[in-house]
C-alpha cells in the first residue's frame, strides 16, 4: 500500500491504538488516538516493592506484572472511555528489557489482539521513547533524538517515520546506571537519578571530574571512568581526613555528564543537518539536562521537543504512539511474537 492511501485512510477515520509496556518495573497501558492524543496513560509503578532490594529484581517485577496487567488494561479503557470494539490495534513493547517482565505484556497483548481479532504490533522500547515526542509536537525530519535512561544512552537520527539510525551509544554504563551507582556511593537512596539531580542544584560544580569525549569523530559515550573518578575523589578525600559536600560532588558529576551529553548532541545535530532535536527516556526528567539542552538549542536555533515528565519515564502512551505509525505502514506482528532482552533499533 502506498503512503498516500494510508494518509487518506488516516484522515477518514480515527485510529485508536492500545499500548502495553512492561519492560521493567512499570505496568502501563494507554490508549492513543491517531498517534497523537493520549486518551489515557495508566502507569502502575512497583518502585515501593523494589526499594527494599535497592534495585529492580526481575523475578519480583514479573510477578507484579502478572498480578496487575488485566486490572490496568481495564482501568485504561475505563479512563479513556473506549471499548475493546473501538480499538484498531494492540501495540506492545517486545524489547529491549527484562524478558520475564516483557513476556507478561507480550502475552496480554497477544490475548487481547486474538480475542478481538485486532492486529498485534511489537514495538521497540527506544522507538517508543522517541515517539513520546510526537505526543507533544509533530516530528520534523531529519530529527536527532538523545535517548537517556537507566538502560540506554543513544543518539538516533531519523530521516522519516520508522527509519532509525543509531549513530552513537554507550560503551559501558548507561547514563541512568551511572547516576544510580554514584548515588549509592554518596549514600543516596534508590533510585539515584532524581536524588542527584536535586542535590546538584544545591551545590557548586567545583570538583574537576573527567569528561569522556572518546575519539573526535565518535558520538559514543562512556560513563564508567567518570563513576570511578567520583569513587576515587571520595576515597582520597577520606584518606586526607577531608569532608566533601555531597552536593558539590553531585553538582560536579552532573556537570560532567551533561557537558558530554549536550556537547555530543549539538555536534551530531550540526553534522547531520537535522531540523529538530528530541529528548527521550527516563533521564530526560533530569532538570539540569533539560535546562542545558534548551539553552544550547536556543543558541544554535534548533527546534527542541522535551516531553513532560510523565512521558519521559516508561509509559505505554509512547508505545501506542510508535505502534500507530507502524500500524499505518502495515508493520504488524504475528502471534509468535517473542519478548527480546536486546535487539537493535532499525
Amino acid at each position, binding site marked *: 500500500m502506498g503512503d498516500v492511501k494510508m494518509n487518506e485512510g488516516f484522515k477518514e477515520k480515527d485510529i485508536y491504538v492500545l499500548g502495553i509496556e512492561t519492560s521493567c518495573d512499570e505496568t502501563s497501558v494507554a490508549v492513543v488516538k491517531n498517534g497523537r492524543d493520549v486518551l489515557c496513560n495508566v502507569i502502575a509503578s512497583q518502585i515501593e516493592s523494589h526499594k527494599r532490594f535497592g534495585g529492580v529484581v526481575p*523475578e*519480583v517485577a*514479573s510477578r507484579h506484572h*502478572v498480578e496487575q496487567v488485566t486490572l490496568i*488494561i481495564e482501568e485504561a479503557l475505563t479512563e479513556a472511555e473506549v471499548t475493546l470494539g473501538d480499538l484498531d490495534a494492540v501495540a506492545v513493547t517486545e524489547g529491549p528489557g527484562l524478558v520475564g517482565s516483557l513476556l507478561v505484556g507480550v*502475552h496480554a497483548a497477544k*490475548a487481547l489482539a486474538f480475542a*478481538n481479532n485486532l492486529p498485534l504490533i511489537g514495538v521497540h522500547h527506544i522507538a517508543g521513547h522517541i515517539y513520546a515526542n510526537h505526543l507533544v509536537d509533530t516530528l520534523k525530519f531529519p530529527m536527532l533524538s538523545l535517548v537517556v535512561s537507566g538502560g540506554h544512552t543513544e543518539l538516533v537520527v531519523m530521516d522519516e517515520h520508522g527509519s532509525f539510525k543509531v549513530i552513537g551509544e554507550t560503551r559501558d554504563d548507561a547514563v541512568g546506571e551511572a547516576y544510580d551507582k554514584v548515588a549509592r556511593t554518596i549514600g543516596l537512596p534508590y533510585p539515584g537519578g532524581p536524588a542527584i539531580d536535586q542535590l546538584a542544584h544545591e551545590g557548586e560544580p567545583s570538583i574537576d571530574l573527567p569528561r569522556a569525549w572518546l575519539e573526535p569523530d565518535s558520538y559514543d559515550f562512556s560513563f564508567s571512568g567518570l563513576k570511578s573518578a567520583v569513587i576515587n575523589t571520595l576515597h582520597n578525600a577520606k584518606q586526607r581526613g577531608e569532608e566533601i559536600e555531597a552536593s558539590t560532588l553531585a553538582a560536579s558529576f552532573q556537570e560532567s555528564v551533561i557537558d558530554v551529553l549536550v556537547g555530543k548532541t549539538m555536534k551530531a545535530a550540526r553534522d547531520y543537518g537535522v531540523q529538530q532535536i528530541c529528548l527521550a527516556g527516563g533521564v530526560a526528567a533530569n532538570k539540569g539536562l533539560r535546562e542545558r539542552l534548551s539553552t544550547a538549542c536556543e543558541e544554535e536555533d534548533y527546534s527542541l521537543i522535551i516531553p513532560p515528565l510523565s512521558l519521559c519515564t516508561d509509559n505505554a502512551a509512547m508505545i501506542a504512539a510508535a505502534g500507530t505509525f507502524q500500524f499505518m505502514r502495515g508493520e504488524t506482528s504475528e502471534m509468535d511474537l*517473542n519478548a527480546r532482552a536486546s535487539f537493535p533499533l532499525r
Partner: protein
Amino acid sequence: MNVLAIDTSTYVLGVSVIKEGQPVGEKMTNIKKNHALRLMPAVEQLLRDVDIKPADLDRIVVSHGPGSYTGVRIAVTTAKTLAWSLNIPVVGVSSLEALAQNGRYFQGLIAPFIDARRGQVFTGLYQGGTGSVENVIEDGLTDHRAWLEKLKSYQKPVLFLGNEWDKHVEVIEEIMGEQAVLAKPADRLLKPAQLAELGIEKTPLENVHALTPQYLRLAEAEAKWMEQNGREEEKR
C-alpha cells in the same frame, strides 16, 4: 459449553478444546522449545481446526502452577487476558492435580511431581480410583527424599507421575521399593483435555483479575529479604 484449556507449566505445552461438552481437539508437545513463541499460534490453530471463534468460548481453564515461573506466567497472563476481554469465566487449576488425572482409575495413592531443582519437588498426594481424584496432602515444595519417606509410611502402592523422570526415578525406586508404581512415559505428562475436564468441574473465580500464578515458592530476593527482616525483628 465450549472450553479452552492451556498449560505451559513445564516443558509440556498443552492446549485443548471442549466443544459442547465433547473433547474435540488437543495439541501437546513435550520438548524444550520456547513456549512464548508457540502458545498463541497453537491456540489459534486449534480453534481454527475445530471451528470455534474466540467469541464462541464460554470458559478458559489454565494450569496456574506450580511449575516453571515463566511458563506459568505465560499461561496465566494469556488465560486471564483472554477471559477478561471475552468477558467469560476463568478457572485456575493446580498443575499437579491436573497431572494426577492420569491416575484417576488407579485404585490407590497418586504422587504427581514437578522437578524443583536441588533435590526438591513440587508435589502433593492424591487418591484415585473412581474416575476422579481427591486431594490427600496439599501441593507444596519439599525435599524429595523426605517426601518419599513419608509416602512409604502409608504402606500402600503409590503411583508416580511426572516429567524430568530420569532425575527422580532412582530415588523413588530406592526408597519406595515395591510400593512404587511407575507410570509409562505418556502417562507422566499433563493431558490438556483432562485439564479442560477438570476445569469444567470447578467453580470459576468470581473476579478474573484475581487469577494469579501459584508458584509455591517465594522469589529468591523476597525470601532473603524476609529472612533478614525476620532476623532484625528478633534482635529488637
